[in-house]
């Protein structure tokens, strides 16, 4: 195996693993805050959970960016072949 292949596999793993840390913490905080809000105000649960879903998707996008970068490194790397 070429060392360039090896480096790109390691780079993909590092990109996904470190890129997932921030969104994971952020999603945890967002869900905790939404749970708190629903517990205080159960009649607003519909609006809160709808906004929560959209917000979670926003946060999740950061992790998805890292995943896409990792896939680019693995499958569409300009330096290999």
């Amino acid at each position: 195996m070429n060392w360039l292949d090896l480096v790109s596999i390691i780079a993909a793993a590092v990109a996904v693993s470190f890129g997932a840390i921030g969104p994971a913490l952020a999603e945890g905080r967002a869900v905790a805050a939404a749970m708190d809000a629903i517990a205080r105000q159960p009649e607003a649960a519909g609006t809160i959970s709808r906004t929560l879903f959209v917000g979670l998707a926003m946060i999740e996008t950061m992790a998805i960016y890292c995943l896409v970068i990792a896939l680019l490194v693995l499958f569409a790397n300009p330096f290999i072949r």
Partner: protein
Amino acid sequence: MRSPLVAKTVFSIGPVPITEPVLVTWGLIAGLVLLAYLATRRLSLRPGPAQAALEVVVSTAQSHIAETMRVAPAPYVALLGTLFAFILTANWSTIVPGIEPPTAYLETDAALAVIVFVAVIYYGIRARGFVGYLKTFAEPTALMVPLNLIATFTRTFSLIVRLFGNVMSGVFIVGIVLSLAGLLVPIPLMALELLIGAVQAYIFTVLAMVFVGQAVGGAGSPERTQGSLS
């Protein structure tokens, strides 16, 4: 392993290669159009079961748009409802064996996001006039013009990448688990994939709503939509 960025060519018409997601998209369009035609063929004031179900769907879409955009939903329900219906059926087409959802390929998502991009400009100009729409780029102050211009493009890009990443990673993970563990093991993952597909279709539509609502400028739109620009 096959690259998720390249689609398989099935056949080609002259110099134009027709890939697998394009074929699936055509099938979905035909199915949705046929369903809509059959459901609306005999509309009456006293609805039968099919028409009643359809009316529930349409009125839910209308109330959602009215709540999110704070404007009358009539001009927008056709585009946004079609977007939701198409993305939902495209994401859920993965449960048919042998079919990969067309939204798992970058080209389909790019086409959908470009539709939203053009629709935002069109509705913005229609609601405010050309000069009035251009003025929205200098909304808080004139200093924000470059940032607002950049945001117009990056939010389209993030629509593309969000849908593509979510759907494609689901297909990819199911493929990997299937090759490692074998038959019947990836079924819970596929169920999760259905949930993610529905949520992503909803989110894509809600974001399109927010962008259009911001361009059209319903009551108090800047405060409402600021948080969801990304």
